[in-house]
């Protein structure tokens, strides 16, 4: 989805990969941590549970914005959660680098979460800055 927007702006290939990586981290976090889907034992249980992710992404003024929202378990302590290498699920082979990668690849990352209610990650990145400056 992100790539669809960005490719129209002739961004650097790196920028597309950056955005894809950051979005991928946030979405998989919603699925694995928010809804704990790694534990759903396949279709049988999926029949009894449900999980929704809300994603909004857009472009204005050369800034690509995306927000990823889940109605999962929420994060009790955002500051701890965002520390590099921190993971609440080491048993799942999680690296704890998800938030670090989002911050590394995007210009801005904001996390809002209410424990027991859900999480929203909002990210921004300027795209195609080089061309912009050349044109001015």
């Amino acid at each position, binding site marked *: 989805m992100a790539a669809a927007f960005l490719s129209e702006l002739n961004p650097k*290939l*790196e920028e597309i*990969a950056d955005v*894809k*990586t950051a979005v*991928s*981290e946030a979405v*998989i976090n919603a699925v*694995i941590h928010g809804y704990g889907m790694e534990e759903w034992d396949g279709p049988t249980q999926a029949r009894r549970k449900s999980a929704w992710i809300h994603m909004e992404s857009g472009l204005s003024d050369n800034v690509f914005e995306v927000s990823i929202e889940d109605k999962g378990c929420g994060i009790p302590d955002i500051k701890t959660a965002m520390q590099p290498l921190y993971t609440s699920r080491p048993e799942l*082979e*999680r*690296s704890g*680098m*998800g938030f*670090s*990668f989002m911050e*590394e690849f995007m210009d801005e990352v904001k996390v809002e979460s209410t424990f027991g209610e859900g999480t929203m990650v909002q990210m921004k990145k300027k795209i195609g800055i080089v061309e912009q400056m050349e044109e001015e």
Partner: protein
Amino acid sequence: MKACKKNGQYLMIQMPEEIDHHQTVQIRQAADESILEDEVRDVIFDFGQTRMMDSSGIEIIMGRYRMISAFGGQVYIMNADTRIKKILFSAGIQKIAEFIN
């Protein structure tokens, strides 16, 4: 799995163009089977085709390292481009894996 090739004691894992959680679940299964059944010692990850990677790429390397290092095995990383190298370094992978070319 097509992406795994065994050469003697090495397991060579061809990483996909885009590495995300979904891709690594499959690679992990195939790799672990191979490591356990064929008693592979070293694992080589070939990133030659990879253009995009999220943190699941880190996880799969660290996980395989944990499995094989106990038995003296070593993890190698091949053909990573500048971008992928930067990502791997930012997670400290150079401490557990050797970069070849």
